[in-house]
């Protein structure tokens, strides 16, 4: 019998690095553990999925730690958040969803988004997927 693996659902609502990294680390770890992971990028989080845009800001409260994070990424000890998600998608079960309401508010088109975005969803669709999750987070 195939073991039913747990599922992780994360809502990402910010394009600041201090939010994107924890979300990407948890999603990629879930994928490595053979879990499913669903990421719903909404409001300012959705900006992080725009093509040709590399989020580089950290929340002001944590400004003093920005260089430490950049150094960790440059040294290779910490992968880039986007690569964690992309590679996690290639190897495991990560789904990336864009919030339809945000796309309307910020005038973002599907073509503006990274190719690894699986679908554009509304809140009801995401909630109905997330209701089966054992771990649900809002970041």
């Amino acid at each position, binding site marked *: 019998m195939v073991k039913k*693996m747990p599922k992780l659902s994360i809502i990402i609502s910010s394009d600041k690095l201090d939010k994107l990294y924890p979300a990407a680390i948890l999603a990629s*770890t879930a994928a490595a*553990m053979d879990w499913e992971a669903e990421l719903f990028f909404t409001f300012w989080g959705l900006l992080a999925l725009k093509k040709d845009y590399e989020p580089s800001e950290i929340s002001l409260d944590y400004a003093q730690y920005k260089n430490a994070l950049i150094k960790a990424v440059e040294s290779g000890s910490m992968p880039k958040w986007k690569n964690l998600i992309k590679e996690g998608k290639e190897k495991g079960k990560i789904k990336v969803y864009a919030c339809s309401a945000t796309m309307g508010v910020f005038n973002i088109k599907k073509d503006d988004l990274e190719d690894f975005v699986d679908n554009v969803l509304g809140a009801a669709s995401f909630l109905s997927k997330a209701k089966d999750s054992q771990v649900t987070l809002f970041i």
Partner: protein
Amino acid sequence: MNEKIIVVDARFKSCPGPLIALSEAAKNAKSKQIVKLLATDSAAPLDVKAWIESVGHKLLKVLEKNGVCEIEVEIR
């Protein structure tokens, strides 16, 4: 039992680097093959145990010397 041990060197990689490298190696390994992870991330032994519980391999040994964890896993 004499299958060559696969060594995964994830020293100086922070979480989740070691676990991702280990799971990648595990996917390419044969059943009963041993994969040895080298990691400096202090949570690696606990993380590997949690991963093993999830995916079903077998933990053979955990050793720590000079700040480097050596973790051997037998692939299911």
